[in-house]
């Protein structure tokens, strides 16, 4: 077997256009991280290390046949639930939230696992029930969704629980959830909103929403992030201040500028033209992802892959919306741009799964 054949084999389950687009995004992201960290070489190195590991994981995952994946669905979900229970009982509190579990060597955040495990579980469940799919099955799937979401919301981690809810909802939606239920649930949620506002939300969460409405009400506290990031975006203008030349960024006015608020850095330095390019790049990735998802041979594949791509779209939208001041501040990184290994790993493993689900056609019975 020659080298060419090895590569062919190695990359057999990758989708060229998608990988190309992702690569472009990662490259762009690296440029922004370089600027946002002020050319901090240690951070750049760790960013590239994370990227390599995540790309490796993506490659690896693309080789896992969908059937094997389906076997993982239930155990992964169950493990996630157990860990969430562990967090609720023994978790350590960081910044007022009980999100982490100390495992001696390292500490993990089980909610991260659930980002993929929940849609996988739901997709598997609907796939499993596809012959006789009825309303009750959606109800059970709904429960399977709300159980972990409840735990995560309680930590509290409103952002993650909402995003997991979204990813689960995408599975159900693509799986054919009745419009009546969707509209009914939306109406119920709307009706319950005032109640949830008063009882379920913590003060700091309420503050985040309130500061969105009027950031100047607390310019040095909760509103500071939003005010400064909006200034950064707005002052970028059409063509931006130039790479490495953002004043908001480099004079330290932007908080969390290499992680959740990295879009403000990008926006300040590359302007509206850069933003348009980034939006189009995300749109292309989502487009390609959805095209691939639709081509998946199994229902599990279609549902899971579709949910992964739509969740990716959601992350991108929520992050950019938050940084530009139209959504409340939730801790969501800009996918594949923000500095941080976990997010990159989750997203690229997700895309690895998408590609695996689509490219293993002949191994899957239909």
């Amino acid at each position: 077997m020659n080298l060419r054949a090895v590569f062919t084999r190695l990359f057999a389950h990758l989708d060229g256009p998608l990988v190309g687009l992702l690569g472009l995004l990662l490259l762009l992201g690296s440029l922004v991280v370089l600027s946002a960290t002020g050319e901090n070489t240690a951070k750049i190195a760790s960013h590239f290390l994370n990227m390599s590991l995540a790309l490796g994981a993506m490659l690896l995952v693309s080789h896992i046949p969908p059937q094997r994946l389906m076997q993982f669905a239930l155990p992964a979900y169950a493990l996630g639930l157990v860990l969430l229970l562990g967090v609720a009982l023994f978790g350590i509190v960081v910044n007022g939230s009980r999100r982490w579990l100390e495992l001696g060597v390292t500490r993990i955040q089980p909610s991260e696992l659930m980002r993929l495990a929940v849609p996988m579980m739901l997709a598997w469940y609907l796939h499993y029930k596809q012959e006789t799919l009825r309303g009750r099955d959606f109800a059970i799937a709904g429960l399977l969704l709300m159980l972990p979401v409840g735990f995560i919301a309680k930590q509290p981690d409103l952002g993650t629980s909402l995003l997991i809810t979204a990813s689960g909802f995408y599975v159900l939606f693509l799986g054919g959830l009745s419009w009546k239920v969707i509209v009914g649930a939306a109406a119920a949620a709307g009706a319950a909103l005032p109640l949830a506002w008063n009882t379920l939300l913590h003060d700091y969460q309420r503050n985040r929403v309130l500061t969105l409405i009027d950031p100047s009400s607390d310019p040095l506290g909760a509103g500071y992030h939003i005010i400064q990031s909006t200034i950064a975006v707005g002052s970028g203008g059409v063509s931006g201040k130039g790479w490495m030349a953002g004043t908001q960024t480099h004079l330290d006015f932007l908080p969390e500028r290499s992680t959740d608020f990295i879009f403000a850095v990008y926006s300040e330095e590359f302007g509206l033209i850069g933003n348009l390019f980034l939006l189009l790049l995300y749109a292309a990735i989502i487009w390609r992802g959805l095209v691939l998802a639709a081509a998946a041979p199994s229902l599990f594949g279609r549902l899971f892959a579709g949910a992964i791509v739509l969740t990716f779209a959601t992350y991108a939208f929520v992050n950019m919306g938050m940084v530009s001041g139209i959504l409340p501040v939730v801790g969501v990184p800009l996918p594949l741009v923000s500095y941080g290994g976990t997010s990159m790993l989750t997203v690229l493993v997700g895309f690895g799964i998408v590609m695996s689900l689509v490219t293993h056609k002949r191994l899957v019975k239909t």
Partner: protein
Amino acid sequence: MSSLRLINPEVEFLRYRRRMEIAGGVAALLFLALFSRFVWLQIIQYDHYHALAESNRISLVPAPPSRGVVYDRQGLVLAQNFSAYTLEITPDKAGKLADTIDQLARVVNIDAEDRKRFRRLLAESKNFESVPIRNRLTEEEVARFTVNRYRFSGVEVKARLFRQYPFADIFSHVVGYIGRIGQRDLDRLEANEQLANYRGSDYIGKLGIEASYEAWLHGNTGIEKVETDSSGRAVRVLSRTAPVSGHNLYLHLDAKLQQVAEKVFGDYRGALVALDPRNGGVLALVSKPGFDPNLFVDGIDSASWRELNDSPDRPLVNRALRGVYPPGSTIKPFMALAGLEIGVRKPADTISDPGYFVLPGSSHRYRDWKKGGHGMVDLKRSLVISCDTYYYGLAHLMGIERMSGFLAQFGFGKKSGVDLDGELAGLMPTPAWKQKRLKQPWWPGETVIAGIGQGFVLTTPMQLAVATMAIANNGVVYKPQLIRAWRDPVSGQVSYAAPRPLGKIAMSPEHLRLVKEAMVEVTQPGGTASAAGANAPYLLAGKTGTAQVIGIRQGEKYDASRVAARNRDHALFIAFAPADDPKIVVAVLVENGGHGGSTAAPVARKVIDYWLLGKLPTVYAPVEPMAAPPEEEVEDAGPTEEIAPPVVEEGATQ
């Protein structure tokens, strides 16, 4: 959804496709919403956010000018700047102040007085302004703090300009002092639209030349455009408009003459004003006792303040401008001129002085200072021997209205207009004034005693000097002024202050000659100041005066043992010399000095001796002006400049 559905892969897939299209469509719409938001922020609102980012980034730091230096006529420094290090705390950034100060006290020396001053300044300041805890750090203390600086957030060493008055109390009332800008100063600055120019200035003139020439001395504040990061640290200077230093002022004052005057006063309280009759320049302006203006610069401590404020000697009052005294017999030369000019007396007219004067139809005797009287007295003799009876009668003949009207031409009852603040006008009474103020009619007896400078008549030593100048100059009066010249800080050009003539009092030269001759004879054998005038190698013209002390002023503390001493008469003397070509005019007031001829006249003689002959009195010992602390060259040391740039730590916010 309750019914069992037959699964048709075809239908199911179509539905999936439909749902996917919906999801994609929603995503596309949301992205479009994002794009519109970006258009809003980055195109429509661009100017707004650009401005915000710029104001985030750029801060304008005032660069305070260095204050003008004040010199005497010989170029001796009366007020100067020196640069020294201060340790300052910004309360906003410093955490618990008491702890911070305790910690600091272990690094640099901070005594109770420093703490007290800090607390006072703190109460006056805003939280984001830095407040000095220690002034004039030594190099060693600066070094010690710099090593420990990381432990103290919100504490900085700053190089600041301090004001110093090398002659200390000698010029306290003339040169005055600067002090920290208070609320009243701020209000005034705001009213004058000067507030912007004082951004970055901590001090303002409070008294004397420092106050009256504040606008010239202060200079113009420069602006530094600085790029700052979010913690307010300057990253780089973008542009700089240099500050323009204040004008250097050169005064008519002569530091040595002033010291001579100070010395010859001895322990007496009082005031002396010496003018150059040729231009109104103030050669010396003494008010005894004085105080050390250096005490006020950093904010005077309460003990020193109490001592100065409560002292029965009232060192804070500028007696030369704000001390109002009955002129006593020093008014007589002006009365004589009034009588001659108005025409109620001729030079040769004589009176017979029985030792008292009686108003027609009254039995009350207005006594002459000499029991038994002076016998036959003409106008000249009335001045030489200071005959009271002559002037009682003259005043009565003139009447108060004419008398006041004539004397007002010499500046009595009016501010002299000298270039210092706070001058009092004294009083040249009229019946109208009395009716208005006291709601009483004027009594003829009040005219009689006004004729010898008693009763309601009140003058300041400055007014006496100005009036004397009018005689010395044959009627020409100049507004007294301290300023002689100033140096423009930009061009370096020195401009001289023009004399400010107040006009000429119309008087017959014959009358003037007569009065001047009489004033010369005052200092000759037989005159009331003959002792003081003895052996003068120039013609000294003068007039003695003795003013009864009416009472103890309000607010003054009674000290039984001192009342007697303080009820003694004030001694006065006005003089000019040489009488044939006057170069100096002097007015002296010695509080509780007794007779003008014996106490005040010798003071004037010694001052004039020095001025005309360069002769130093035996009591004279020159005051060594304090040297400025040697640390810094004074030029261009911007008070806000930092000693060392802070180290920026990377990654703290990640």
